[in-house]
């Protein structure tokens, strides 16, 4: 029994470095494996649609004819399935969070016709 069982810890806190940081002036370092957002290296993408099929939230849309790869960042839950399953390893998980957007629309990326380019060369 007794009171002030937390006294030592609370008073000790006065002489310690604060546990909190002054966000947003200061931010915490991002660990390497943090799940921020999915990035596609369009140079290597072959538009095979495997990522779109594996995605649990149907966030990815692949248009083979129009040669575009689109991701709806508002649907993506950063599960990493697409990154694991991509046969060309062109998807990566960037540790930075996607910045806020004013409109809820997917980010569309044009995929260049690399095979053809190579054939011409």
């Amino acid at each position, binding site marked *: *029994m*007794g*009171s*002030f*069982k*937390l006294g*030592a*810890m*609370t008073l000790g806190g006065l002489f310690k470095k604060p*546990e909190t940081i002054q966000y947003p002036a200061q931010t915490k370092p991002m*660990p390497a*494996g*943090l*799940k921020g957002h999915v990035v596609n290296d369009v140079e290597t993408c072959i538009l095979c649609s495997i990522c779109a099929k*594996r*995605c*649990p*939230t149907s966030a990815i849309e692949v248009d083979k004819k129009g040669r575009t790869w689109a991701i709806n960042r508002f649907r993506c*839950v*950063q*599960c*990493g*399935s697409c990154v*694991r399953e991509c046969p060309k390893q062109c998807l990566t*998980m960037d*540790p930075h969070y996607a910045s806020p957007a004013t409109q809820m629309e997917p980010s569309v990326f044009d995929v260049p016709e690399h095979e053809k380019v190579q054939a011409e060369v």
Partner: protein
Amino acid sequence: MGKATVIPFGPQHPVLPEPLHLDLVVEDEKVIEAIPQIGFVHRGLEKLVETRDYNQFIYVAERICGICAFGHSMGYAETVERLMGVEIPTRAEYLRVIWHELSRIHSHILWMGLAADAFGFESLFMHCWRLRERVLDIFEKTTGGRVIFSVVKVGGVVRDIDKLQFNEIKRVLEGIKHDYNQLCKAFLKDTSVKNRTVGVGYISHEDALDLSMVGPFARASSVNNDSRCLGNGGYKFLSDFQPIMDGQGDCYARVKVRALEVLQSIDIIEEMIAKIPEGDIAVPVKGSPADGAESSNVVEQPRGECYYYARGNGSKYLERMRMRTPTSQNLGGMTKVLAGCDLADVNMIVLTIDPCISCTER
């Protein structure tokens, strides 16, 4: 004797992290009956199993609850692995136990903070959540997420923890242990805390058994029902496991059981880190669950035993996925405890069952 009055408690109430409604029938300052009502956050997650294949559903399963996210993904994966007869690598089983026990630590410390907040001990609340933050940082570094981890998959886990990270986990846990022991002293020895918890919300061993209570709520009434004893998954590698129990059956006992379980979890993690073998972390899983195949599984979540049932239909979509979560088991006990208590103790009693409503409603 006064006139009976009904006082609504919740679904929005400062003490409740989640929406639960209670109709409290009071006479003077005594509660004579409590009628619970849930259904404010139903999301129909079990139904989603029809439109997400068994690999994708794991990300739905872990969204059942924000606190036991890891436990649900592990429970679901184990159930599907049983359904398909998949043996996962030993290292993956160890890693699952380590993450699951870390979840238990963060869940219990979070709960202790909420309890401190409920009895008005704000600095204790802050200290609890300060420590919990360190556990979340471990998660952030090892899984890439703080609350939802997405590290389990059917057939194993998707990330490994290396030696360096294990050393850091051990160092952080040592630091937590030191501070945590002081918090425990405040929770278990401080007069002002004891005044709010000792003898409040008593439930007997017989009632606890009758009402099929689970988890720390039941263990505080000496019901030995820790499903970690069954040795499912990686728990079979533990050299010794004795569930923490207490016979007092009041709020103080429930605080005590949870407080000691955190230390027990730290010991389990240390043992697992010392014994973890090298090897693969996942096996490839091909095919679909057979038509009519059934399997079930129990996992000891921070709030108690959670039961999983799955049935296949020959396609990659499951026919049925069912979970019975600990809070739905404990609501009966809660109404029993509330009948006869003081109105001022209601918030303390509701909190000590650690209700998780979004688990219950899914």
